[in-house]
């Protein structure tokens, strides 16, 4: 009551107000600047440092110098893969935590990661697929199949469509099952084991422009579905009954969300391996900036995800010279303590 009497009866700033708009544009430009810095570092820093002038030269008018070749054939595709996978995992993580209303959910919860791992191992072993480009397709197929299986299993519970709980349970069960199968496969086959070990760590190194082209359509469709899903997710955040009462088709919203998560996560893990930690951590960084509105949380998570993945990759190139540390290792090493600190500092957000 005391605050009510102290506060003058001025209309409070709300959506559309200039204060809020100024804050939004400040955050958006800040995040874009962060992403730009990450991209530039990713292009310039590495086993062979390239000065900023040469990076510019390579991008605008390459003449075939050594630095031009390094930047154009290695660093640009690597950076593009990092940006794409980072956006995909960040957005998928925010979607996943929104749909399950669980702050500790990661995008791999639908069995996507283990599905990709299993089909890749299977393809390497039985079909003798060796090239990276070959097994990305198998990874994608496995990710989609596993997710569809989890969705179908989650639906068994009742007529109202899968609930976050049945989805999480089905996802955990399917993941454990696929993990067991994958372990059995890689124990039998040395070559599958080698590829799989590398893939499991998660890295954006050594991916060519072809990888970008391969997974880009999946990421694009996934992002489009995520965009369509955002207002419905806001309604769902108030509980299923309130969402229905607000005229939201809950089953459809969930299905669209699951499709978006599957496409985004499937594309990212098929191209870069298991980097699910990005999806777990990034929404927690984005939420203080965006608030609980998914129309802002999703794009913020995407931008932060891309920046985080690139910066981790750059750090991995610097710390172990002349060798490199995989981005997945760096993310886990830096991210885990950071995440613990984040959780300890403020209570994990209730969704």
């Amino acid at each position, binding site marked *: 009551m005391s605050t009510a009497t102290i506060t003058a009866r001025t209309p409070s700033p709300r959506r559309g107000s200039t204060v809020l708009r100024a804050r939004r544009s400040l955050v958006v430009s800040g995040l874009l600047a962060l992403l730009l810095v990450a991209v530039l570092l990713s292009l310039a820093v590495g086993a062979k440092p390239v000065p900023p002038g040469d990076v510019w030269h390579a991008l605008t008018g390459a003449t075939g110098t050594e630095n031009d070749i390094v930047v154009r054939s290695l660093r640009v595709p690597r950076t593009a893969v990092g940006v794409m996978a980072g956006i995909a995992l960040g957005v998928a993580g925010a979607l996943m935590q929104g749909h399950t209303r669980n702050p500790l959910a990661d995008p791999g919860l639908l069995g996507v990661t283990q599905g990709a791992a299993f089909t890749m191992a299977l393809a390497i072993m039985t079909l003798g697929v060796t090239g990276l480009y070959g097994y990305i397709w198998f990874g994608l197929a496995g990710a989609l199949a596993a997710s569809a299986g989890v969705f179908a299993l989650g639906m068994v519970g009742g007529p109202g469509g899968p609930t976050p709980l049945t989805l999480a349970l089905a996802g955990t069960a399917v993941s454990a099952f696929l993990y067991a199968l994958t372990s059995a496969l890689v124990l039998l086959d040395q070559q599958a084991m080698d590829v799989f070990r590398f893939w499991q760590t998660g890295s954006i190194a050594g991916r060519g422009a072809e990888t970008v082209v391969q997974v880009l359509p999946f990421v694009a469709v996934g992002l489009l579905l995520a965009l369509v899903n955002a207002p419905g997710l806001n309604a769902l955040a108030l509980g299923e009954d309130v969402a229905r009462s607000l005229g939201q088709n809950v089953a459809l919203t969930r299905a669209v969300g699951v499709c978006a998560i599957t496409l985004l996560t499937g594309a990212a893990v098929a191209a870069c391996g298991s980097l699910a930690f990005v999806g777990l951590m990034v929404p927690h960084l984005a939420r203080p900036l965006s*608030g609980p*509105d998914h129309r802002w949380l999703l794009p913020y998570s995407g931008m932060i995800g891309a920046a985080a993945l690139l910066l981790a990759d750059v750090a991995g190139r610097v710390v172990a010279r002349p060798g490199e540390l995989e981005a997945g290792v760096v993310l886990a090493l830096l991210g885990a303590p950071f995440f613990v600190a984040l959780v300890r500092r403020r209570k994990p957000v209730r969704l």
Partner: protein
Amino acid sequence: MRLRAVDVKLGYGDRVIVDGLDLGIEAGTVTTIIGPNGCGKSTLLRALGRLLKPSGGEVLLDGKRIDRMPTKEVAKILGVLPQAPTAPEGLTVADLVARGRHPHQTWYRQWSSGDELAVNEALSMTGLLDLGERPLDELSGGQRQRAWISMALAQGTDLLLLDEPTTFLDLAHQIEVLELVRRLHGELGRTVVMVLHDLNLAARYTDHLVAMRSGKVVAAGPPAEVLTEDLLAEVFDLAARVIEDPVAGTPMVVPIGSLPATGERARRNGALLKD
């Protein structure tokens, strides 16, 4: 008659809770459903609000089958506030109320001046204008419940279904919420259907009382006709005196003690007869 349940059969899975129930809600009235725990009153309210699909019979909204209407169209006529709803942490009162505009928005037009107006009106009607920027979790229980009602109000529906809107509130806050319901009805002409546990408050703030037991409507009508000592025994197994509320003039229940369950009473009466 705006909202009607015709011979509805309701339940979850194989468990039938309500069978063959008829109920009509007149426009511009406040209807309260009372009954013991587990009698199916919340289930009925959920069915009226198309949150639960009847396994038999039908629910009609303005004469049309509610389950065949587009859910977004229903959401412009009928708002439902479930029991103890939850919101994500950090959501402000104004943001919550703004989400009530959901059925009026499309993916390409997210916010209009009409939305702004409806939200401001809903906030001022519920006395929350000054608390708009406060996170929901910092409010008192009564304020929070008012914020949720404000959201349902911003939805701009003629009909409002409230499931136990006073649960977990102290008496002063219960009165605060029910006064608000009375104003929604009196000033805005909204039709309200709610589930309440407090019989005296139900009698005070209601035009039409519906008493339920074991999935059946036992009595329905004005509180003065429905809330009798016989009914309390039949519906709640409660021995009570019903006197006139000295303030509102409505029936007031003064409990004496619980009676044995109806079945047992019937058996005992039978035994007595045999003797």
